[in-house]
């Protein structure tokens, strides 16, 4: 078990956070710490806007970081489960980023 940091960009909608936290509980993953903020500077996320052909507006998205204790084999499964949540736009760990259907080989979030 290693401590890993996950970063999520998600829709800032009622109930979105509880879906993420609930998923961790439901699937037996552990949360060491959690932090969430609305995003006001979209410049780092231009690549998401381009990929999804969208334009973020003020207060529309949040950035969430979670520290979790997991094995390597579970890591990919957690990323894929989080990526499956409808309100989650992108999720990454230190090495990869899942942007809906697209898997990118670095942490872009």
């Amino acid at each position: 078990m290693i401590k890993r940091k996950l970063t999520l960009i998600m829709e800032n909608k009622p109930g979105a956070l509880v879906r993420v936290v609930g998923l961790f509980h439901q699937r037996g993953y552990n949360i060491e710490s959690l932090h969430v903020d609305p995003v006001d500077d979209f410049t780092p996320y231009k690549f998401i806007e381009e990929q999804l052909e969208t334009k973020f507006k003020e207060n529309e998205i949040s950035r969430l970081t979670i520290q979790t204790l997991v094995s390597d084999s579970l890591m990919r499964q957690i990323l894929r489960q989080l990526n499956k949540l409808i309100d989650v736009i992108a999720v990454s760990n230190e090495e990869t980023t899942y942007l809906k259907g697209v898997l990118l080989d670095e942490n872009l979030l």
Partner: protein
Amino acid sequence: MGTKLKLSGADMLMHALHDEGVELIFGYPGGAALHIYDAIFRQDKIEHILVRHEQGATHAADGYARSTGKPGVVLVTSGPGATNAITGIATAFMDSIPMVVISGQVASHLIGTDAFQETDMIGISRPVVKHSYCVFDANEIPKIVKEAFHVATSGRPGPVVIDIPKDMTAPDNLFEYEYPKKANIRSYNPPVEPDENQIERAVTELLNAKRPVIYAGGGAIASNAEEELFRLNEILDAPVTNTLMGLGIYPATHHRFLGMLGMHGTYQANMAMHNADLIIAIGARFDDRITNNPSKFSPGAKVIHLDVDHSSVSKIIEANIAVFGQVKNSLSAMIKLLETKLDQYNKDTLQPWHDQIQNWKSSHGLNYELYKNESDENPILPQAVVQHVYNITEGKAYVTSDVGQHQMFAAQYYHFDEPRKWINSGSMGTMGFGLPAAMGVKFAFPNEEVLCITGEGSIQMCIQELSTCLQYNLPIKIININNEALGMVKQWQDMNYGGRHSQSTYQNSLPDFVKLAESYGHVGIKVEKNSELKSALEKAFSMKDRLVFVDVYVDPAEHVYPMLIANNSLEDMWLSKDKKT
């Protein structure tokens, strides 16, 4: 441009459902849903089916969805209406069935006050839905309905809840109604077309396999991939096994069909999977009832896994080649490439593999001729009941089942040649599913034979729906395989708990099912002897316009075999009470 329609929230909901193509809603009224029910009364495009319990509504919508491929729609009120629907929502979720559940909620200003019939439906349903919506602005009802149906039916299907506070449907607040042509959810984009490189890698493996097995599940049915699967195997000529959820996606009477695999799969299917050198998993997810102990699963096989859901691949069994996309599209792509390489493939190389499988089948395959024993010296075998039903209906009926031994006997002995005809609660294992699911199928296919194979335990969990069947004149045939015990529980107690039947028998407290069926206005037939079985079933199926409840007393000591021995491989099975592999 004409002037837009001005409608209340409730009327917009009904218009949106109609514009979405909904024909039927299964539901039950109550306080928080009454504005919607008044809107239902004032329209004639969508039929509402009044069930007797909200669980029945969800299972009926589920049966409708499984048999048609279209989403089932449910309408319930807040509080107990919503919580009663949960079991059916979870059932649909676990089997990836498209469903939209609309729940009434207390008025917005009352939320959080512990108001009468208030419950947090979004919170309570969250772990068992694909997604959910709460309506905070009535203007958004058309958009939310459009999105809900899109999410429920695309990608890996599943149930979606729309929770609507009562004030959002108030009759005096009018809005301009327009139904969106398209759902646009930027953060939702399930894969459709597969990656070409992966298809190439998969085809290379297919061409070189000596002992391939095609393992197809419910995802192949959800993707309507039966023609592609059949065509693929016209080329490959490989043995095919189906999961409990996949039965019918490949014709059961085809000579390459191995039967179901897994916990109660056939000997040849489990042996073939264990000894394969290539497994082609198509919309199947290596569930624990399939793999037994994953570390001992099929040690020599490479795995090609076709699935629409990224998180289903390499979750239990690592895939060597993952093909993401609608499995229908992935299969088409594989076929297209294979057809250019036919000169590199020789079906005959599989002959030793087919011979081996034939040996397995001859040594320990299921006996499909049990029905021929009509002697009254023996008790009725539950397997023989299913065989008779299969013969009488010529294998063409829609068969729903409940959960337990009868479900496994139905899966083993009714041979499904077409998808969407076998309707059962696979992953969730929900007792009480069979009868309401059969109602949903019968509404969708009023001219087809629809039967429910059940047990005296399961049928009592939603027996109230017999009243719904009378109200809407649904001539379903109910085959109650009555062993006077919770058969599968008892089987486990026999095998693992020294025969201590803790709370699995009813001590002579069962109802008289014939009288019970009659009191609901239907026909009841009781069968206790082998010699009467065939004629009683024929009589039941000859009554085309009546619901007939056939209560068949079977051998209470019978167990379901084969049965995997826990924590071992797929080769390790009990074959009978005293014989294992």
